[in-house]
């Protein structure tokens, strides 16, 4: 039975790579080769990045602390394994669509769980080669650990995935438990926690060099504390030098953690996967009804959909977060921002950097506004409920306009906010920096708002041309629609092209004149796109 289940899990994995998620059909050979090529490219770049990390940690060999090098990299491998498998665990074990089907068949729950964990373990092995391969290569090059040591080093790297799968299962269980407990403001909590996680990730990413330097600097002191103890980190290092007892201890920890995890989960597997998340059940109490206009009703529906979907909020409204963060950071670091402009002014004497500020501000805000892709998946996410809009007395124009209105309401406020903060920071000038002219600020704001308007129209047009109406999970429509990708990258490329256009026209048009020309250009483009939307676009909507 286990063999059949494992075969099913492996087929599912292969299908995920070779199948088209939209049509369910097999990808063309060229597509599979391209996917494989992209995977190898990503894998290789990750291996090289971790190889760089092992180079930084090589200093431990020079200090005679080779064991600490191996222990540190084993820890990195474990952490990477947990991070990379956690989402797979949640989707494969806890949220698998066929859990109920398999549980209804004469199969023991623990066999289902075993097959699922086996699949995750295989993926964990694959992911962890990104850290294990550079670690082992560096180890063989520098450690001189002997045949037994090298063998143990390889075996430990093969055993660590068992530990990472166990820890990821534990974290997945905690996430599932928290998720079932959250009833109020669940969507906002999900968005908040995700943003917090992303912020922490980026802070870590940008400070990685400092962190590595600190580890190398504090390593000897830490290594001294751990030396000779039964601390697993010390024992990992000793095992890699061929210490049999240490190896057996580490192997026992990895295998033991997996056995305990499997035993605990298999007892509760059926209960965990079949317990429905608690929904907030409120008893309806009649209140006086209020009539709204059709336009308001449609707009409110759009807003409810946006606020009701964490995936939509996170992917569609990322630019709003960027703008809010930019406004706060600009206020906090206003002196630094002004100094940076002064430094640039000093480096390019005679140009008068200050006069470029409105254009630079407008393009920066446009860059952030390009990440507001609220309309780009707006048609796709209605795939299953489109019958409602189409069977009601609503014109295509009213339907599309409601989506644009949502985009306006959500993006105009942060655009105005970050523009005003930009003005506050640079309006006063000082230290030889001339203040930002209010007239220029108005131009900058007009450009930024028009860009936001253009992005809304562009995203909606892209989605009408490339809707995804066959999704089974809304996140797929929001994250993986071609229109969403085109709106995001297209918006960024367009911003870049505007900057390039200014560079090419710099002798003909000054920054303020270019800004004015840009406003006219954006206005025309938006009007043309809007006309398409309400004519041909409306016809496309009717045919959906």
């Amino acid at each position: 039975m286990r063999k059949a289940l494992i075969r099913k899990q492996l087929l599912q994995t292969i299908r995920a790579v070779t199948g088209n998620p939209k049509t369910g059909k097999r990808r063309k050979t060229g597509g599979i080769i391209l996917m494989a090529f992209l995977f190898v490219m990503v894998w290789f770049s990750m291996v090289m990045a971790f190889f760089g990390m092992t180079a930084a940690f090589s200093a431990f060999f020079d200090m005679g602390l080779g064991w600490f090098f191996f222990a540190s990299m084993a820890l990195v491998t474990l952490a990477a394994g947990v991070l990379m498998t956690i989402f797979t665990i949640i989707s494969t074990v806890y949220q698998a669509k066929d859990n109920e089907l398999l549980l209804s068949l004469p199969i023991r729950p623990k066999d289902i769980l075993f097959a699922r964990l086996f699949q995750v373990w295989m993926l964990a092995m694959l992911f962890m080669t990104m850290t294990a391969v550079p670690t082992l290569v560096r180890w063989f090059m520098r450690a001189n650990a002997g045949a037994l040591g090298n063998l143990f080093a390889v075996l430990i790297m093969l055993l660590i995935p068992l530990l990472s799968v166990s820890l990821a299962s534990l974290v997945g269980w905690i996430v599932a438990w928290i998720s079932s407990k959250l009833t109020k403001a669940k969507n906002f909590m999900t968005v908040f926690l995700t943003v917090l996680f992303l912020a922490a990730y980026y802070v870590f990413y940008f400070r990685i060099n400092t962190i590595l330097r600190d580890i190398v600097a504090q390593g000897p002191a830490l290594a001294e504390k751990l030396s000779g103890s039964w601390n697993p980190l010390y024992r990992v290092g000793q095992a890699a030098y061929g210490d049999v007892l240490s190896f057996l201890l580490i192997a026992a920890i990895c295998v033991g953690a997996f056995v305990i995890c499997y035993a605990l989960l298999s007892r509760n597997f059926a209960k965990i996967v079949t317990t429905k998340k608690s929904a907030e059940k409120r008893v309806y109490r009649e209140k006086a009804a209020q009539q709204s206009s059709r336009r308001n009703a449609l707009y409110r529906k759009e807003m409810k959909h946006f606020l009701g979907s964490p995936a939509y909020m996170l992917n569609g409204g990322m630019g709003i977060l960027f703008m809010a963060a930019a406004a706060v950071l600009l206020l906090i670091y206003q002196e630094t921002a002004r100094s940076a402009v002064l430094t640039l002014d000093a480096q390019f004497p005679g140009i008068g950097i200050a006069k470029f500020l409105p254009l630079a501000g407008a393009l920066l805000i446009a860059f952030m506004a390009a990440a507001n892709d609220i309309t780009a998946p707006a048609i796709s996410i209605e795939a299953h409920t489109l019958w409602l809009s189409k069977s009601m007395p609503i014109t295509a124009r009213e339907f599309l306009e409601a989506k644009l209105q949502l985009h306006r309401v959500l993006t105009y406020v942060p655009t105005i906010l970050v523009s005003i903060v930009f003005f506050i920071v640079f309006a006063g000038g000082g230290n030889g920096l001339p203040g930002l002219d209010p007239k220029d600020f108005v131009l900058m704001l007009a450009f930024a708002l028009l860009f936001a308007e253009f992005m809304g129209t562009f995203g909606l047009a892209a989605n009408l041309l490339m809707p995804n109406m066959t999704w089974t999970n809304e996140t797929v429509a929001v994250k993986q629609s071609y229109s969403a990708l085109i709106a995001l990258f297209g918006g960024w490329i367009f911003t870049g092209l505007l900057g390039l256009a200014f560079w090419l026209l710099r002798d003909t048009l000054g920054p303020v004149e270019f800004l004015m020309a840009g406003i006219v250009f954006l206005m025309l483009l938006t009007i043309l796109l809007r006309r398409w939307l309400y004519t041909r676009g409306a016809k496309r909507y009717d045919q959906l």
Partner: protein
Amino acid sequence: MLKIEHLTKQYGDKKAVDDLSLEIRPGEIYGFIGHNGAGKTTTIKCAIGILDYDAGDIFIDGIRLKDDPIACKKRIAYIPDNPDLYDYMTGIQFLNFIADVFEVPANVRQERIRKYGDAFALTSDLATNIGSYSHGMKQKLAVIAALIHEPKLLIMDEPFVGLDPKAAFTLKELMHELCAAGGAIFFSTHVLEVAEKLCDKIAIIRNGKLIKSGTMEEVKGDESLEEVFLELVED
């Protein structure tokens, strides 16, 4: 109330509906039966203006659907076989949304929500998110939403699937009520006993073509509807 003239709808080379004509008058309950894939849902979707058609004409209350689809849709309510509703809304938010779109005044909608909510035993659940409704509850909500603007023509695709016996009984009562008030109902079903008891007229479709239509007596004569249907579709 609903007039379908020589309707033809093709998917590629396949004719899903082929030269189909029907007329449903005010006060009539009209049943539409046929095997799976016969073209029932396609006909219904064309009649409510969701699906464009290749040939023929459709009139709702005398208005040509292609000339003024909005005016037609104001007179219709539609309930699909598997109603996917806005899961991110509560039941009451959804009903208010529908009432806003159909411009139902506040006091009128409040009274209707109370009436139909109680009739389908859904009132206490109206503050709950639709996402956590069962299939039957969604079906009931779709029925209430369809009735909230008191349509002249109610078009339903397998309306009794998922409804509990009491809700099914309530729906049948309300169907009679709507027709007594001058409305008309056109619905598809596979439950021939229901069609036989409920419908004034019946149409049988096979491979996109209308093979028989008329009053219940004209269609079935002395036989049961089941016998007639099986004979006709096996011919």
